[in-house]
Protein backbone atom coordinates (compact mmCIF):
# COMPACT_ATOMS: atom_id res chain seq x y z
CA UNK A 1 0.00 0.00 0.00
CA UNK A 2 1.28 3.48 -0.73
CA UNK A 3 0.73 6.87 0.75
CA UNK A 4 -2.52 8.50 -0.43
CA UNK A 5 -1.91 10.89 -3.30
CA UNK A 6 -1.54 14.56 -2.52
CA UNK A 7 -4.72 16.49 -2.18
CA UNK A 8 -5.97 14.73 0.92
CA UNK A 9 -8.74 16.55 2.65
CA UNK A 10 -7.83 19.51 4.82
CA UNK A 11 -7.64 18.78 8.53
CA UNK A 12 -6.63 15.20 7.94
CA UNK A 13 -3.35 13.46 8.37
CA UNK A 14 -1.99 10.24 6.88
CA UNK A 15 0.52 7.81 8.32
CA UNK A 16 1.22 4.13 8.45
CA UNK A 17 0.41 1.76 11.27
CA UNK A 18 4.15 1.56 11.98
CA UNK A 19 4.40 5.33 12.28
CA UNK A 20 1.40 5.34 14.60
CA UNK A 21 2.97 2.70 16.82
CA UNK A 22 6.27 4.59 16.89
CA UNK A 23 4.45 7.72 18.04
CA UNK A 24 2.45 5.81 20.66
CA UNK A 25 5.61 4.30 22.09
CA UNK A 26 7.35 7.66 22.03
CA UNK A 27 4.58 9.03 24.24
CA UNK A 28 5.34 6.43 26.91
CA UNK A 29 9.06 7.21 27.09
CA UNK A 30 10.11 8.69 30.44
CA UNK A 31 12.70 11.40 30.88
CA UNK A 32 16.05 10.47 32.54
CA UNK A 33 15.34 6.73 32.48
CA UNK A 34 17.63 4.24 30.80
CA UNK A 35 16.27 2.07 27.99
CA UNK A 36 17.77 -1.06 26.48
CA UNK A 37 16.69 -1.05 22.84
CA UNK A 38 16.89 -3.56 20.03
CA UNK A 39 19.58 -2.82 17.49
CA UNK A 40 17.42 -1.20 14.83
CA UNK A 41 13.89 -0.76 13.57
CA UNK A 42 10.77 0.87 14.99
CA UNK A 43 11.54 0.42 18.71
CA UNK A 44 14.74 2.43 18.38
CA UNK A 45 12.95 4.93 16.14
CA UNK A 46 10.32 5.45 18.84
CA UNK A 47 12.96 6.22 21.40
CA UNK A 48 14.76 8.59 19.06
CA UNK A 49 11.49 10.38 18.35
CA UNK A 50 10.84 10.85 22.06
CA UNK A 51 14.40 12.09 22.54
CA UNK A 52 13.91 14.68 19.83
CA UNK A 53 10.45 15.78 20.91
CA UNK A 54 9.97 15.52 24.63
CA UNK A 55 12.63 13.74 26.64
CA UNK A 56 16.09 14.92 25.61
CA UNK A 57 17.62 13.44 28.76
CA UNK A 58 16.42 9.89 28.21
CA UNK A 59 19.29 7.47 27.89
CA UNK A 60 19.43 4.35 25.86
CA UNK A 61 21.81 1.54 25.21
CA UNK A 62 21.91 -0.65 22.13
CA UNK A 63 22.97 -4.28 22.01
CA UNK A 64 26.24 -3.67 20.23
CA UNK A 65 27.43 -1.57 23.12
CA UNK A 66 26.85 2.14 22.48
CA UNK A 67 25.85 3.83 25.74
CA UNK A 68 23.56 6.85 25.69
CA UNK A 69 24.33 8.08 22.17
CA UNK A 70 23.08 11.38 20.81
CA UNK A 71 22.60 10.28 17.21
CA UNK A 72 23.62 12.32 14.24
CA UNK A 73 20.47 12.82 12.16
CA UNK A 74 19.50 11.88 9.53
CA UNK A 75 20.43 8.32 10.31
CA UNK A 76 21.80 6.25 7.46
CA UNK A 77 19.27 4.28 5.47
CA UNK A 78 18.36 0.84 6.73
CA UNK A 79 20.43 1.81 9.78
CA UNK A 80 23.48 0.44 8.03
CA UNK A 81 26.65 1.76 9.63
CA UNK A 82 27.10 2.51 13.26
CA UNK A 83 28.85 5.85 13.26
CA UNK A 84 25.81 8.07 13.03
CA UNK A 85 23.66 6.01 15.38
CA UNK A 86 26.46 5.72 17.93
CA UNK A 87 27.41 9.37 17.62
CA UNK A 88 28.30 11.19 20.85
CA UNK A 89 27.78 8.19 23.07
CA UNK A 90 29.10 8.56 26.60
CA UNK A 91 30.83 5.20 26.15
CA UNK A 92 31.46 2.69 23.40
CA UNK A 93 31.55 -0.78 24.85
CA UNK A 94 30.48 -4.24 23.69
CA UNK A 95 27.54 -6.61 23.69
CA UNK A 96 28.62 -8.56 26.77
CA UNK A 97 29.23 -5.33 28.61
CA UNK A 98 25.76 -3.87 28.08
CA UNK A 99 24.10 -7.23 28.72
CA UNK A 100 25.90 -7.25 32.07
CA UNK A 101 24.63 -3.74 32.75
CA UNK A 102 21.13 -5.14 32.19
CA UNK A 103 21.80 -8.19 34.39
CA UNK A 104 22.80 -5.79 37.16
CA UNK A 105 19.48 -3.99 36.96
CA UNK A 106 20.63 -0.71 35.42
CA UNK A 107 18.14 -0.84 32.55
CA UNK A 108 14.84 0.69 33.59
CA UNK A 109 13.05 -0.30 30.40
CA UNK A 110 13.50 -2.74 27.55
CA UNK A 111 12.05 -1.83 24.18
CA UNK A 112 11.51 -4.31 21.35
CA UNK A 113 9.23 -5.77 18.70
CA UNK A 114 7.46 -9.15 18.57
CA UNK A 115 6.06 -11.30 15.77
CA UNK A 116 3.54 -13.02 18.02
CA UNK A 117 2.60 -12.44 21.64
CA UNK A 118 0.47 -14.35 24.14
CA UNK A 119 -1.67 -13.23 27.06
CA UNK A 120 1.27 -13.37 29.47
CA UNK A 121 3.50 -11.25 27.28
CA UNK A 122 5.66 -14.13 26.12
CA UNK A 123 6.64 -13.57 22.51
CA UNK A 124 7.94 -15.12 19.33
CA UNK A 125 10.50 -13.92 16.83
CA UNK A 126 11.68 -17.30 15.56
CA UNK A 127 9.17 -18.91 13.16
CA UNK A 128 5.51 -18.76 12.15
CA UNK A 129 3.48 -21.79 11.13
CA UNK A 130 4.48 -25.43 10.88
CA UNK A 131 6.83 -26.99 13.41
CA UNK A 132 10.27 -26.02 14.64
CA UNK A 133 11.85 -28.59 12.33
CA UNK A 134 9.56 -27.75 9.39
CA UNK A 135 8.63 -24.10 9.83
CA UNK A 136 6.37 -22.41 7.27
CA UNK A 137 8.36 -19.27 7.67
CA UNK A 138 11.57 -18.93 9.60
CA UNK A 139 12.57 -15.53 10.99
CA UNK A 140 15.80 -14.22 12.41
CA UNK A 141 15.37 -15.49 15.95
CA UNK A 142 15.37 -13.52 19.18
CA UNK A 143 18.45 -11.46 18.39
CA UNK A 144 18.82 -9.35 21.49
CA UNK A 145 15.19 -9.69 22.57
CA UNK A 146 15.67 -12.51 25.03
CA UNK A 147 18.26 -10.69 27.13
CA UNK A 148 16.25 -7.47 27.00
CA UNK A 149 12.94 -9.11 27.92
CA UNK A 150 14.59 -11.19 30.63
CA UNK A 151 16.73 -8.61 32.35
CA UNK A 152 15.16 -5.16 32.16
CA UNK A 153 12.86 -4.09 34.98
CA UNK A 154 10.01 -3.31 32.59
CA UNK A 155 9.70 -4.32 28.97
CA UNK A 156 7.77 -2.46 26.28
CA UNK A 157 6.78 -4.66 23.34
CA UNK A 158 5.46 -3.43 20.03
CA UNK A 159 3.48 -5.49 17.55
CA UNK A 160 0.61 -5.06 15.12
CA UNK A 161 -3.04 -5.21 16.08
CA UNK A 162 -3.74 -8.44 14.16
CA UNK A 163 -5.38 -11.66 15.25
CA UNK A 164 -2.32 -13.59 14.05
CA UNK A 165 -0.15 -11.51 16.39
CA UNK A 166 -2.14 -11.88 19.62
CA UNK A 167 -2.37 -15.65 19.86
CA UNK A 168 -3.52 -18.24 22.37
CA UNK A 169 -0.45 -20.30 21.77
CA UNK A 170 2.84 -19.06 20.38
CA UNK A 171 4.38 -21.09 17.58
CA UNK A 172 7.63 -20.64 19.53
CA UNK A 173 8.39 -18.79 22.73
CA UNK A 174 11.57 -16.98 21.78
CA UNK A 175 11.60 -14.62 24.76
CA UNK A 176 9.91 -14.61 28.12
CA UNK A 177 6.97 -12.61 29.38
CA UNK A 178 5.39 -13.88 32.58
CA UNK A 179 5.72 -17.47 31.26
CA UNK A 180 2.72 -19.41 32.64
CA UNK A 181 1.63 -16.42 34.68
CA UNK A 182 2.05 -18.12 38.05
CA UNK A 183 3.74 -16.14 40.82
CA UNK A 184 7.51 -16.53 40.68
CA UNK A 185 7.48 -18.21 37.27
CA UNK A 186 10.33 -16.04 35.99
CA UNK A 187 12.39 -16.40 39.15
CA UNK A 188 12.07 -20.20 39.00
CA UNK A 189 13.91 -20.29 35.67
CA UNK A 190 16.70 -18.02 36.83
CA UNK A 191 15.49 -14.65 35.54
CA UNK A 192 16.06 -11.56 37.70
CA UNK A 193 13.30 -11.04 40.26
CA UNK A 194 10.53 -8.50 39.75
CA UNK A 195 11.14 -7.97 36.05
CA UNK A 196 8.76 -8.52 33.17
CA UNK A 197 6.62 -7.07 30.38
CA UNK A 198 5.02 -3.75 31.16
CA UNK A 199 3.32 -2.46 28.03
CA UNK A 200 2.31 -3.86 24.66
CA UNK A 201 1.84 -1.19 22.04
CA UNK A 202 0.11 -1.47 18.66
CA UNK A 203 -1.13 1.10 16.17
CA UNK A 204 -4.56 0.91 17.78
CA UNK A 205 -4.12 0.06 21.42
CA UNK A 206 -2.07 0.06 24.57
CA UNK A 207 -1.96 -2.89 26.96
CA UNK A 208 -0.59 -3.38 30.45
CA UNK A 209 -0.48 -6.47 32.67
CA UNK A 210 -2.54 -7.31 35.71
CA UNK A 211 -0.32 -7.49 38.76
CA UNK A 212 -2.04 -10.53 40.25
CA UNK A 213 -2.78 -12.72 37.26
CA UNK A 214 -0.05 -11.35 34.97
CA UNK A 215 -2.58 -11.29 32.14
CA UNK A 216 -2.57 -8.67 29.45
CA UNK A 217 -5.03 -5.82 30.02
CA UNK A 218 -6.26 -3.29 27.51
CA UNK A 219 -5.61 0.16 28.98
CA UNK A 220 -5.68 2.54 26.03
CA UNK A 221 -7.17 3.05 22.58
CA UNK A 222 -6.18 5.19 19.64
CA UNK A 223 -8.84 7.79 18.86
CA UNK A 224 -9.68 5.95 15.65
CA UNK A 225 -9.94 2.53 17.28
CA UNK A 226 -12.74 0.82 19.20
CA UNK A 227 -12.54 -1.77 21.90
CA UNK A 228 -14.58 -4.15 19.77
CA UNK A 229 -12.30 -3.61 16.81
CA UNK A 230 -9.22 -4.29 18.92
CA UNK A 231 -10.67 -7.40 20.58
CA UNK A 232 -11.68 -8.70 17.16
CA UNK A 233 -8.02 -8.60 16.25
CA UNK A 234 -6.90 -10.82 19.13
CA UNK A 235 -7.24 -14.59 19.53
CA UNK A 236 -7.41 -14.32 23.29
CA UNK A 237 -9.54 -11.92 25.23
CA UNK A 238 -7.49 -9.55 27.36
CA UNK A 239 -8.60 -8.01 30.60
CA UNK A 240 -9.99 -4.51 30.07
CA UNK A 241 -9.27 -1.56 32.35
CA UNK A 242 -12.21 0.28 33.86
CA UNK A 243 -11.20 3.44 32.12
CA UNK A 244 -9.40 3.38 28.80
CA UNK A 245 -6.80 6.00 28.08
CA UNK A 246 -7.31 7.92 24.84
CA UNK A 247 -4.06 7.79 22.90
CA UNK A 248 -2.93 10.70 20.75
CA UNK A 249 -2.98 11.20 17.02
CA UNK A 250 0.58 11.47 15.67
CA UNK A 251 1.40 15.13 15.13
CA UNK A 252 2.75 16.51 11.87
CA UNK A 253 5.96 17.40 13.68
CA UNK A 254 6.40 13.84 14.85
CA UNK A 255 5.72 12.46 11.39
CA UNK A 256 8.13 14.93 9.84
CA UNK A 257 10.91 13.93 12.19
CA UNK A 258 10.33 10.25 11.50
CA UNK A 259 10.29 10.77 7.75
CA UNK A 260 13.09 13.30 7.43
CA UNK A 261 15.55 12.21 10.08
CA UNK A 262 14.83 8.93 11.75
CA UNK A 263 13.87 6.83 8.76
CA UNK A 264 14.78 8.97 5.78
CA UNK A 265 13.23 7.53 2.67
CA UNK A 266 10.79 5.61 4.82
CA UNK A 267 12.54 2.30 4.31
CA UNK A 268 10.93 0.79 7.38
CA UNK A 269 8.07 3.04 8.24
CA UNK A 270 6.42 3.69 4.87
CA UNK A 271 5.86 0.01 4.20
CA UNK A 272 3.08 -0.38 6.71
CA UNK A 273 -0.64 0.02 6.26
CA UNK A 274 -1.62 3.63 5.52
CA UNK A 275 -4.50 5.34 7.26
CA UNK A 276 -5.94 8.83 7.05
CA UNK A 277 -7.25 10.44 10.20
CA UNK A 278 -9.30 13.54 10.73
CA UNK A 279 -7.30 15.59 13.20
CA UNK A 280 -10.20 17.15 15.02
CA UNK A 281 -12.21 14.02 15.65
CA UNK A 282 -9.41 11.47 15.51
CA UNK A 283 -11.63 9.42 13.22
CA UNK A 284 -10.42 7.41 10.34
CA UNK A 285 -11.42 8.64 6.90
CA UNK A 286 -9.35 6.15 4.87
Amino acid at each position, binding site marked *: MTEPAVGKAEGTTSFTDIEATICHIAHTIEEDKLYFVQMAGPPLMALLLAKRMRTPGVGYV*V*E*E*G*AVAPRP*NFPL*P*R*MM*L*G*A*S*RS*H*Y*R*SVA*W*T*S*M*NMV*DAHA*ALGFMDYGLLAALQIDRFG*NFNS*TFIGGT*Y*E*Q*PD*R*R*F*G*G*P*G*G*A*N*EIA*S*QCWRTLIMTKQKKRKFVNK*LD*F*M*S*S*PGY*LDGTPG*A*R*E*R*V*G*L*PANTGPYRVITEDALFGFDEATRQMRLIGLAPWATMEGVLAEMEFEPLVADKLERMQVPSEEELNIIRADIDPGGFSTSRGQWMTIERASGRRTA
Partner: protein
Amino acid sequence: SLLVAGGCVSRIDVGWMESGPVINRAIKEGRIKLIEWSNGALAYRLLAGSLGVPYLPMRYLGGTDTFEQSAAKLTQDPYTGKPICLVPALYPDVALIHVHQCDVYGNARVFGAGVAPLEMAMCSKKVIVSTEEIIDTEAIRRQPQRTTIPYYFVDAVVHAPFGSYPGSTPGLYGAHLEHWLEFAAAQMQNKTDDYLEKWVHSVASHEEMLEKRVGADRLEQMRQGETVQEGYYD
Protein backbone atom coordinates in the same frame (compact mmCIF):
# COMPACT_ATOMS: atom_id res chain seq x y z
CA SER B 1 22.39 -17.06 3.44
CA LEU B 2 25.22 -17.11 0.91
CA LEU B 3 27.14 -19.73 2.81
CA VAL B 4 23.98 -21.82 3.01
CA ALA B 5 23.32 -21.23 -0.70
CA GLY B 6 26.89 -22.31 -1.38
CA GLY B 7 26.36 -25.50 0.58
CA CYS B 8 29.03 -24.59 3.13
CA VAL B 9 26.88 -24.88 6.24
CA SER B 10 25.44 -27.80 8.15
CA ARG B 11 24.75 -26.31 11.58
CA ILE B 12 24.10 -22.79 12.77
CA ASP B 13 24.13 -21.47 16.30
CA VAL B 14 21.50 -18.76 15.90
CA GLY B 15 21.35 -15.49 17.79
CA TRP B 16 19.78 -13.50 15.01
CA MET B 17 20.26 -14.49 11.42
CA GLU B 18 19.32 -12.87 8.21
CA SER B 19 16.44 -15.13 7.18
CA GLY B 20 14.89 -15.62 3.77
CA PRO B 21 13.96 -18.16 1.15
CA VAL B 22 17.39 -19.76 0.92
CA ILE B 23 17.59 -20.59 4.60
CA ASN B 24 13.89 -21.45 4.78
CA ARG B 25 14.37 -24.06 2.10
CA ALA B 26 17.54 -25.48 3.63
CA ILE B 27 15.80 -25.90 7.00
CA LYS B 28 12.81 -27.65 5.46
CA GLU B 29 14.99 -29.96 3.42
CA GLY B 30 16.93 -30.84 6.53
CA ARG B 31 20.20 -29.57 5.07
CA ILE B 32 20.94 -27.36 8.05
CA LYS B 33 20.34 -27.85 11.71
CA LEU B 34 19.76 -24.82 13.90
CA ILE B 35 20.56 -24.42 17.58
CA GLU B 36 18.76 -21.51 19.19
CA TRP B 37 20.42 -18.85 21.31
CA SER B 38 20.25 -15.08 21.29
CA ASN B 39 22.77 -12.47 20.26
CA GLY B 40 23.72 -11.89 23.85
CA ALA B 41 23.91 -15.57 24.69
CA LEU B 42 26.30 -16.20 21.81
CA ALA B 43 28.45 -13.26 22.82
CA TYR B 44 28.35 -14.56 26.37
CA ARG B 45 29.45 -18.00 25.20
CA LEU B 46 32.41 -16.24 23.56
CA LEU B 47 33.06 -14.54 26.89
CA ALA B 48 33.08 -17.95 28.60
CA GLY B 49 35.53 -19.17 25.98
CA SER B 50 37.67 -16.08 26.44
CA LEU B 51 37.92 -16.71 30.19
CA GLY B 52 39.15 -20.24 29.59
CA VAL B 53 36.28 -21.75 31.55
CA PRO B 54 33.87 -24.45 30.33
CA TYR B 55 30.66 -22.51 30.98
CA LEU B 56 29.23 -19.38 32.54
CA PRO B 57 26.10 -18.79 34.59
CA MET B 58 23.76 -16.12 33.23
CA ARG B 59 20.53 -14.34 34.01
CA TYR B 60 18.48 -15.06 30.90
CA LEU B 61 17.36 -17.68 28.34
CA GLY B 62 15.54 -19.74 30.99
CA GLY B 63 11.86 -20.53 30.59
CA THR B 64 11.64 -20.20 26.82
CA ASP B 65 11.53 -22.47 23.78
CA THR B 66 14.82 -20.82 22.84
CA PHE B 67 16.26 -22.36 25.99
CA GLU B 68 14.79 -25.77 25.06
CA GLN B 69 16.41 -25.66 21.62
CA SER B 70 19.77 -24.51 23.00
CA ALA B 71 22.42 -26.35 24.97
CA ALA B 72 21.83 -24.18 28.03
CA LYS B 73 21.09 -25.86 31.35
CA LEU B 74 19.03 -24.76 34.29
CA THR B 75 20.87 -25.51 37.52
CA GLN B 76 20.93 -24.55 41.15
CA ASP B 77 23.43 -21.92 42.26
CA PRO B 78 25.48 -23.76 44.91
CA TYR B 79 25.84 -20.55 46.92
CA THR B 80 22.26 -19.33 47.15
CA GLY B 81 20.32 -22.41 46.10
CA LYS B 82 18.48 -20.30 43.53
CA PRO B 83 17.95 -21.38 39.91
CA ILE B 84 20.50 -20.12 37.41
CA CYS B 85 20.99 -20.78 33.72
CA LEU B 86 24.34 -22.03 32.38
CA VAL B 87 25.68 -21.76 28.84
CA PRO B 88 28.70 -23.66 27.50
CA ALA B 89 31.79 -21.85 26.27
CA LEU B 90 32.21 -21.37 22.55
CA TYR B 91 35.62 -22.22 21.09
CA PRO B 92 35.40 -21.49 17.34
CA ASP B 93 37.94 -23.18 15.10
CA VAL B 94 38.68 -20.01 13.18
CA ALA B 95 37.83 -16.36 13.71
CA LEU B 96 37.92 -13.71 10.99
CA ILE B 97 38.10 -10.28 12.57
CA HIS B 98 38.24 -7.05 10.62
CA VAL B 99 39.92 -4.12 12.37
CA HIS B 100 40.80 -0.50 11.76
CA GLN B 101 44.52 -0.77 12.50
CA CYS B 102 46.96 -3.55 13.25
CA ASP B 103 50.71 -4.00 13.40
CA VAL B 104 52.54 -6.88 11.72
CA TYR B 105 52.46 -8.90 14.94
CA GLY B 106 48.69 -8.71 15.25
CA ASN B 107 48.34 -6.01 17.91
CA ALA B 108 44.99 -4.73 16.69
CA ARG B 109 42.78 -1.72 17.24
CA VAL B 110 39.03 -1.82 16.76
CA PHE B 111 37.40 1.57 17.11
CA GLY B 112 33.80 2.07 18.14
CA ALA B 113 31.27 -0.08 19.94
CA GLY B 114 31.27 -3.66 18.78
CA VAL B 115 29.83 -7.06 19.47
CA ALA B 116 32.75 -8.99 20.92
CA PRO B 117 35.93 -8.76 18.84
CA LEU B 118 38.25 -9.32 21.78
CA GLU B 119 36.32 -12.27 23.19
CA MET B 120 36.21 -13.76 19.70
CA ALA B 121 39.97 -13.40 19.29
CA MET B 122 40.63 -14.89 22.72
CA CYS B 123 38.46 -17.99 22.42
CA SER B 124 39.06 -18.98 18.80
CA LYS B 125 41.63 -21.62 18.01
CA LYS B 126 42.96 -19.73 14.99
CA VAL B 127 42.55 -16.01 14.53
CA ILE B 128 42.90 -14.17 11.23
CA VAL B 129 42.84 -10.40 11.51
CA SER B 130 42.15 -8.37 8.39
CA THR B 131 42.93 -4.70 8.70
CA GLU B 132 42.19 -1.48 6.89
CA GLU B 133 45.69 -0.31 7.70
CA ILE B 134 48.98 -1.76 8.91
CA ILE B 135 50.63 0.53 11.43
CA ASP B 136 54.00 0.53 13.08
CA THR B 137 54.53 -1.40 16.31
CA GLU B 138 56.02 1.71 17.88
CA ALA B 139 52.70 3.49 17.25
CA ILE B 140 50.95 0.64 19.07
CA ARG B 141 53.40 0.92 21.97
CA ARG B 142 53.00 4.67 22.25
CA GLN B 143 49.27 4.25 22.97
CA PRO B 144 48.81 0.88 24.68
CA GLN B 145 45.35 1.91 25.84
CA ARG B 146 44.05 1.78 22.29
CA THR B 147 44.97 -1.85 21.64
CA THR B 148 41.91 -4.08 21.45
CA ILE B 149 43.60 -7.40 20.73
CA PRO B 150 47.19 -8.21 21.81
CA TYR B 151 49.44 -10.03 19.37
CA TYR B 152 49.52 -13.43 20.98
CA PHE B 153 45.92 -14.18 20.10
CA VAL B 154 46.50 -13.50 16.42
CA ASP B 155 47.75 -16.15 13.98
CA ALA B 156 47.66 -14.15 10.74
CA VAL B 157 47.31 -10.55 9.64
CA VAL B 158 45.86 -9.62 6.24
CA HIS B 159 46.03 -6.10 4.86
CA ALA B 160 42.55 -5.62 3.42
CA PRO B 161 41.40 -2.06 2.75
CA PHE B 162 37.60 -1.94 2.38
CA GLY B 163 37.57 -5.31 4.08
CA SER B 164 34.07 -4.69 5.45
CA TYR B 165 32.61 -4.22 1.98
CA PRO B 166 29.64 -4.13 1.37
CA GLY B 167 29.34 -3.14 5.02
CA SER B 168 30.88 -0.12 6.66
CA THR B 169 33.95 0.47 8.76
CA PRO B 170 32.82 3.19 11.18
CA GLY B 171 34.84 6.36 10.95
CA LEU B 172 36.31 5.35 7.59
CA TYR B 173 33.65 4.48 5.02
CA GLY B 174 29.91 3.90 4.85
CA ALA B 175 28.08 0.82 3.64
CA HIS B 176 27.24 0.20 -0.01
CA LEU B 177 23.47 0.30 0.23
CA GLU B 178 22.81 -0.68 -3.39
CA HIS B 179 24.81 -3.83 -2.94
CA TRP B 180 22.59 -4.92 -0.08
CA LEU B 181 19.51 -4.22 -2.18
CA GLU B 182 20.99 -6.24 -5.03
CA PHE B 183 21.65 -9.10 -2.67
CA ALA B 184 18.13 -8.97 -1.23
CA ALA B 185 16.67 -8.97 -4.75
CA ALA B 186 18.82 -11.93 -5.80
CA GLN B 187 17.54 -13.89 -2.85
CA MET B 188 13.91 -13.02 -3.51
CA GLN B 189 14.25 -13.94 -7.16
CA ASN B 190 16.06 -17.16 -6.37
CA LYS B 191 19.17 -15.90 -8.15
CA THR B 192 21.81 -16.32 -5.51
CA ASP B 193 23.87 -18.42 -7.94
CA ASP B 194 24.11 -15.44 -10.29
CA TYR B 195 24.94 -13.20 -7.37
CA LEU B 196 27.69 -15.52 -6.17
CA GLU B 197 29.07 -15.83 -9.70
CA LYS B 198 29.26 -12.06 -10.09
CA TRP B 199 30.66 -11.17 -6.69
CA VAL B 200 32.63 -14.23 -5.65
CA HIS B 201 33.42 -16.89 -8.23
CA SER B 202 34.24 -14.62 -11.18
CA VAL B 203 36.85 -12.61 -9.30
CA ALA B 204 40.17 -13.91 -8.08
CA SER B 205 40.53 -11.82 -4.95
CA HIS B 206 39.02 -9.21 -2.70
CA GLU B 207 41.11 -6.59 -4.52
CA GLU B 208 39.90 -7.68 -7.93
CA MET B 209 36.32 -7.66 -6.71
CA LEU B 210 36.75 -4.11 -5.43
CA GLU B 211 38.42 -2.96 -8.63
CA LYS B 212 36.19 -4.65 -11.22
CA ARG B 213 32.83 -4.97 -9.51
CA VAL B 214 32.80 -1.90 -7.30
CA GLY B 215 35.26 0.54 -8.83
CA ALA B 216 37.34 3.38 -7.46
CA ASP B 217 34.58 5.97 -7.84
CA ARG B 218 32.15 4.00 -5.76
CA LEU B 219 34.78 3.33 -3.10
CA GLU B 220 35.48 7.04 -2.95
CA GLN B 221 31.75 7.65 -2.54
CA MET B 222 31.67 5.17 0.31
CA ARG B 223 34.48 7.11 1.97
CA GLN B 224 32.61 10.34 1.55
CA GLY B 225 29.46 8.62 2.77
CA GLU B 226 31.08 8.28 6.18
CA THR B 227 30.35 11.68 7.64
CA VAL B 228 31.47 10.90 11.17
CA GLN B 229 35.12 10.53 12.05
CA GLU B 230 34.88 11.90 15.56
CA GLY B 231 35.80 9.44 18.28
CA TYR B 232 37.27 6.79 16.00
CA TYR B 233 40.74 7.83 14.97
CA ASP B 234 41.25 10.66 17.44
